[in-house]
Structure formats: C-alpha cells, structure tokens
C-alpha cells in the first residue's frame, strides 16, 4: 500500500515536472504557456512530491529497502509519463491530420 502511495506521489511529481517543461506543456495544453514564476512553482512542487514519495517509503521500509524501492518506483513513474507524452503526441498528430 505504501508503495502504491509513493508511486502515486512520484507520478504526480513527475507529471508536474513534465508540465514545467515548455515542449511538453505545449503537448498537453496547446496554446497556453506558463509564466517563469509559474514554471518555478510547478517544478518545485513536483520535486517536493518526489521527495515526499521517498520519505513515505523510508519511514515504512527503512533507509536501505525504502530507497531501493524508491528507485524502482521512480523508474516506473517516469516511464509512465514518457509513455503518456508519446500517446498524447500521436493523438495530436492524428487530430491535426484529421482536421487537414
């Protein structure tokens, strides 16, 4: 259960970091752009959630097992976000082609 919680935090954390990158923001919200201040806030929040995900695991599983699990959780979460970006890009392309 803790691993699932940590995974959820990591996924949201990575999603925020992803949105703080302009090229990915364009994919998810075409036409809208975050200000520099908003980028900073979103990115910092993303990193804080990643930190929280680590804390959750270390508190329940201990430092050694907790950090090991955390690395695995980060891997799956980051991979999930990259895959979501890719699917989104393919859909946008298909939509654009459909409109053309």
């Amino acid at each position, binding site marked *: 259960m803790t691993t699932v919680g940590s995974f959820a935090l990591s996924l949201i954390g990575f999603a925020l970091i992803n949105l703080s*990158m302009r090229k990915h923001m364009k994919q998810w919200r075409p036409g809208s752009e975050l200000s520099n201040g908003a980028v900073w806030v979103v990115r910092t929040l993303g990193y804080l959630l990643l930190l929280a995900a680590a804390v959750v695991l270390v508190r329940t599983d201990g430092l050694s*097992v907790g950090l090991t699990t955390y690395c695995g959780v980060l*891997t799956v979460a980051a991979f999930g976000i990259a895959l979501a970006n890719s699917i989104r*890009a*393919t859909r946008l392309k298909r939509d654009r082609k459909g409109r053309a």
Partner: protein
Amino acid sequence: MIGSFRQSMTWLHTWAGLVVCWILYFMFVTGTVGYFYTEIDRWMQPDRPVAMDASFSEAVAVGRAHLEREGAGADRWFINPPRGREIPHLRTFWQKPAAEDGGDIQRGNDELDMRTGETVPESVRETGGGQTLYRMHYILHYLNRDIAYRLVGILTLIMFIGMVTGIVVHKKIFKDFFTFRFAKGQRSWLDMHNLFSVTSLPFQLMITYSGLIFMVTTWMPLVAIGSYNFDTEKAAEVISEATGEVSIEAAGVPAELVAFEPVIARAEQAWGDDSLMRMEVRHPGDANARIIVYRKENASRVPARMVFDGVSGEVLDGRTDYVSTPIVVAATFLGLHEGLFAGPVLRWLYFLSGLLGTAMIATGAIYWTAKRRNKNPDEPEGRGFRFVECLNIGTVVGLPIGIAAYFLANRLLPLGMENRAEWEVHVMFIVWGLTLLYPVLRSRVEAWREQAWLAAAAFAAIPVVNVLTTDNAHLLVTLPAGDWVLAGFDLTAIAAAVLFVVAALLIGRYRPRSHQSVEAAAERGDATAQSSAVA
C-alpha cells in the same frame, strides 16, 4: 581522441556497446529472469511438496535430530531453517573430515520436509530449474568457470564504460527525460534507447557496478595475495578472515552438545524475535564445540553472528561489528545486486528494471543499424552490416524463443530421460542457434516479423502445454486455488506472448520504402519521412 571529448566518448559508447551487446543482452535477460528463480524452480518441479513455514526453534530441532542420525562424527553441521521463497524447505549440511590414512572429505546435503522430518522427495522431473537459467548470467553455461568469470568481468567493465560514456554523450539528459517520439524511424530508436537508460539509470549503475564487485577477487587477486606476502595458500583464507569466520580445532575429548533452546533464546534476546537466520555447529560432541547463530541479513547482506560454547552454552563472542568497512560496502552492493531481501513488489520492480536494461541494450543495437541505413540509403548492405542485423534479430527475439523452449522442454522431454536437466539447456541453445541462422535466409522485415510471431506462439504454448502435461499445476487449477506462484508463471508467459503479438503486428504495419520515396520525401523537405523511410 576523435574530435572533441564528447565525440570521443560517443565513439567509445557506440563501439564498446556494439561489440559485446549480444552477450550483454544474454546476461541481462538471464539475470532478470533470475529474480524469480525460486518461483521458476517451483513451476519446473510442480510435484515437489509445497513449502511450510516453521519457527526457527522448531526447524532447528528437526534439523538437529536429522544431523544426529545422518551426520554423526561430522566436524561441521549447518541448519538452515525455511525462509519464505528463498529457502522453501529446511536445509541441513554436514561435513566429515578426511580419514588420516587418506580418503575424501565426506559431505551430506539434505532438504527436509518440516511436516515429516524426512528428506523432501526428488521431483520426477529432473531439471536445472530457474537456478540454471539464473546462473547462466555469470557462468555463461558451456564455458569453463574460470574463463567465464574473467570474461563476464571484462564484459561488465565494458558495460560500465558504456553507461558512463552514455551519460557523457547524452547532451539533453534532463530536457529529453520524458521524450519518446513514436514512429519516427531512427529518432524513435534513439529516444527509446535514451528513455530505457535514463529512467532506470540508478538500477543500471547499481547492477553493473555491483557486478564488478562480484569479480573483484577474480580480476584483482594481487590485492589479497600481496597482503599475505604472496603466500597463495594463506591468501585463500582471505574471505573467511574478512568475514570473521570462527576458527577452532577439536579438543578430541567427547562432551555432550548443549540444548539449542537457551542458545536461541539468548540470541533472540540480543537481536529480537524472528531475527535468526541459520545455525552452524563446529565439532558437535567435542569439548571444543562451538554453536554459531547468524542473524537474518537485511538489504546490505552484512553478516552478523553470535558464537556460543557448545558445551556450556555461554556466549563467547557477541560482537556485531567484526567485519571491516570494505566488507560492509561490498556486502551492501552484493545484497542490492541479488535482491534476496526484496518482497513481492520490490522483486517485480527489480524485474521491470532488469527488463528496461535489456531493452536499453536491444534498442542500442537496433539504433546502430537504423542510423547506418539512414546515413547511406544508396549503398547496398555490406557483410558486416548484415552480420550485425542478423545477430540483432537472432538475439533480441531469438533468445526469448530459446528461453520459452527451455520451459517447454521441461514439460515435453521424457521424464526418465538421461541427463534430462542438461538437455533442457541444450534445447534452449539449439533453438536460439536456429533463430540466429533464420534471419540469414529471410529479408530483415520478414525475419523480425516471423520471429516475433514465433516468440508469441512459443510463450502462448507454455500454459497450453502445461495443461496437457500436468495434473494440478496448470491455470485451470492454480487460478481457482489462488496459487499465485504457479499461476503467475503461466500468466507472465501469456503476457510475454501478448507483447510479442503487439510487436509482430507493429512490424507487420511497417512498409520499407524504396530509395525513390526517400528522394521524393527529400524533395518535399520532409525530414521525418526520409528518416522513417530508411529506418
């Protein structure tokens, strides 16, 4: 140096990676599968009795009774109580010294059923099981063990160089962290390679560096030998000295071995309930008997033990800090590499990270060919290029087919067959060998597609053949019974089959375009089309 520093590193990354990528792929696949070797063992010997949990003191009592019968006169006993998936049954070991007038050291190794105290019957299915598959990643099976260790050490070092140079050459490591551009030919292969590498980077660095630590005494023996003034006999004791192994001679005076209960109680008082892992007895029945109780290892595998007088039951050595810092560091890395401490969730994360490492190597190898084809679309494929391509197809898809054949052989080879376990492995390598030859006879796309379909069929056949060849170890029984070890194996085989079906369908949609279409795309200024046309 070739051009700039980064260009040199790119060259090193490309060629270091390419030359050994197929054997690294083999090591990663078999090592990754090895994270479930106990579960695979059980699937391959479904008729063996299911493990039963027991308390440390219960198991030790059963083990002692067995050793007093079978190991009387031995100078060493080991009792290893059942411990979840890693040690499913109580294990005992005894060793008698060689007789003074010659002869060999005698040893006895047994697995005991906790319900009966009797030896667990051997399976009717002689098999190498998951252990053989797992061991392949560092002994490479057919090679002499010394040669294999040295070779694996070099390969691991090359892998490590590949990873460090990969980090150096990846200019936009953070910017492209979440980037995977689908269906863009060569670009997609590079994105995939980067994505697999970067997302699992902590695991890949850990697994490669800790792999090097396993090989430290193979490749740097002079460190130990030099510490013993080049006395090679004494240097052989380095491991036992470094890990604080107890050394004591028998007194030659008979004395009754103390009861184990107070010893266990004393150790549990120091380390807590359910904290004990195994017990060793030196010179049982002698006045100099010693009982050594080992604490359960945590993730770091750092050993901790208490030494008791085997006659009085007194604590002789209760220190836990007897190992040196280098041993602690090494044990930490080795523990992380093996992941024996991992529960089900972490074990799956290990497995997934291993798969990403495997995919990293595969996509790197495929990218090499895609890039060269994109660069020189006019040139006919040279022999070297074709050789790399055939190895790519025959290894990336062929090795999984070989592994599926290994599992099928376990179910299909005659039960009484001589050297059955060895033949399971021979079947795996014969099938893999055939899949390496097949791409030579077919065009690139045909070979990829057909082998992907073959892999899908081979993995889909596993649960089907299982239904036909076992009475109660197949999905129709294991799923309703909630036996997730056996059911999980079959379901994983089905998942692998589905994955290969998807791969085969994607390859089936791919239409290699002629060079003219590339030129036409170039005239239109369509860079994407150019790239995907030739990739």
